[in-house]
């Protein structure tokens, strides 16, 4: 699975992109976020607050109950501030 990080999620994680092998027991975004938090203190800091996490699977916004599979591209980022 390809993970993309943007804005201050990227600076806390220390990478714009990661390739991860999704554990078989993880079936949805909720599970993915919880698992990613365990990867490093930076990951935990980026994902500290559920309310501040936006998720796009294959470039489309999804909620935490959305299913994920190892072939997905999952982007994680804070609330947007363009315009």
């Amino acid at each position, binding site marked *: 699975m390809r993970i993309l990080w943007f*804005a201050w999620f990227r600076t806390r994680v220390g990478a714009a992109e990661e390739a991860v092998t999704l554990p078989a027991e993880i079936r949805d975004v909720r599970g993915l976020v919880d698992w990613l938090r365990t990867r490093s203190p930076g990951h935990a800091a980026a994902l500290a607050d559920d309310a501040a996490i936006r998720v796009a699977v294959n470039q489309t916004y999804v909620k935490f109950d959305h299913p994920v599979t190892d072939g997905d591209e999952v982007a994680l980022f*804070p609330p947007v501030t363009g315009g």
Partner: protein
Amino acid sequence: MSGPSVDAGKLVVVRVQHEDFDVGAEIAALTQGRPAIGGVTSFLGLVRDIHGDARVGAMTLEHFPGMTERELARISDEAHARWPLEATLIVHRVGRLEPGDRIVLCAAASAHRQAAFDACAFLIDFLKTRAPFWKLEATDGGERWVEARASDDAAAARWQGPETRS
């Protein structure tokens, strides 16, 4: 003064670019060959020199290439579905910008003034809450990521119907 109106079709323009844009040329391109258009409402966003209580020297706009364009097209399509529009435009810059620089231009063109106003407000409100852009500001106190504002969520919520809830 005779013959049917030429229907040039609905126009949807979405662009993300580093370069500056020419407001007059963008709006002229939108209305060219569409004589049913009676009015164009546009919103031009600029970099301010003050944000909260800090002076801003410059900012860098980051985005999610690919998804940004998809979201802007989706927002534009929804505006066309909601209002009788002839044309819409969203142009947004990325990269380093300074106070006074143009950031974004949204425009909606319609036979009807109220539709143009409502659709333009809708475009910028949704862009601000859904399009994946982030601002990194350089202030006197160092660099900081701009925080999302509750007032922007409230502005977008005005338009909220089942089809726009994520």
